[in-house]
Structures are given as C-alpha cells and as structure tokens.
C-alpha cells in the first residue's frame, strides 16, 4: 500500500495520541458551497449568499478542486463564467495537518480560508482561519 501518509491524506480515521487533538479535516466545513467552471458568477453568488457563505469552492465532477471564490471574486460581474472569475489552483492542505501548522500557513499566506483536500485533490471541506484560531484558543 502507499503507506500511512496516503491513508491519512484521504482523511480516513486513525488511532493514536495525535488523534486527540482536532486537525484540519476535523474542523473544515464540509458544507461549503461548490460550483463548476461553466456556471455564471451571478447565479453562484446568489446561491452562496442564500447558504450564508461568502466563499465557494470550484470543483469538477469528481470534486477535484479547481479554484476558489472568496468575497472579492464573488463581487465580480454577474455574467462572468466561474472559470474567468475564480482564483485558479489555490493552495490546498491535507486533512491530517495540525491546527498549529494550519495557523502558521494561513497567517504566512494571508489566507482567511484554505481548501482541505485528499491527496488526489478531492474536496474535503473549507477550513476557516477564524475556526482554527478559536480551536487553538480553546485548547490552551
């Protein structure tokens, strides 16, 4: 098999002391709105707002992450296709990454959110920096 790393990167359960603390995949929002490349920005924006979000992840049919729409991108012209409006190929992180590492990464890259994916790029959920900070405060 591809080893423990591959299993963990898929977000599958493990046992051991590391599992006592929540990690990226545990607190990522699995209900983040998604859309496809060919949709129109206006329609996606309405759907995202109605769901109470200000971000969406662009995926293909296999839920492989292709791009990200944050509030800045969502504010674009309604007739734009998602392909034209999105931030393409965003940095993604694996579900097993510790929240300390995620906090460093997100501060360094000034990211309010980060898509969490499996090793083959499939969306697990969207991790929000405010949730990471809140969880780390609770752990102290």
């Amino acid at each position, binding site marked *: *098999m*591809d*080893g*423990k*790393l*591959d*299993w*963990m990167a*898929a977000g*599958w*359960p*493990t*046992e*051991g*002391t*590391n*599992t006592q603390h929540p990690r990226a995949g545990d607190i990522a929002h699995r209900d983040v709105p998604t859309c496809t490349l060919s949709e129109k920005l206006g329609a996606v924006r309405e759907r995202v707002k109605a769901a109470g979000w200000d971000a969406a992840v662009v995926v293909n049919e296999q839920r492989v992450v292709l791009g990200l729409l944050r509030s800045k991108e969502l504010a674009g012209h309604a007739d734009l296709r998602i392909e034209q409006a999105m931030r393409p190929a965003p940095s993604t992180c694996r579900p*097993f990454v510790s929240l300390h590492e995620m906090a460093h990464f997100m501060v360094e890259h000034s990211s309010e959110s980060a898509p969490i994916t499996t090793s083959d790029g499939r969306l697990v959920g969207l991790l929000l920096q405010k949730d990471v900070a809140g969880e780390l405060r609770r752990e102290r």
Partner: protein
Amino acid sequence: MPEEIRRDEVRRLVEAGAQLVEVLPSPEYEEEHLPGAIHLPLKHIDARATEVLDRGRPVIVYCWDTA
C-alpha cells in the same frame, strides 16, 4: 507472494479479516496508526512475526509511504 495494494483494497481486506501491521518505530506508531493495526517494528519482524501473526489470515504491512 507479496503484492502491492492501494488504500481501498486495504480497507476491503481488513473488513474481510486481514491483519494490518505497522513496521515503524514505537513513537510513530503511538502517535498515529491505522485502526486496529498491530505494531511490529521492522527490526523485530523476523523474530516476532510467527508469534504475533495468524498464519491463516492475510497480512498487510505498511510504513510511512511508498519509499
């Protein structure tokens, strides 16, 4: 005969009764291992395999990654 398998097949075989063995050193096993994995560090595998493992069931051995 040893055969290389992917994670989906690991899950299927474990559900069917295969034994899962992690060969990494103790600290790494204690920190994190696959559910139900037996710990059999590589340097003890020859000496302890027959004592720890059931000859009648398939055995899946793993370490950190493919390397």
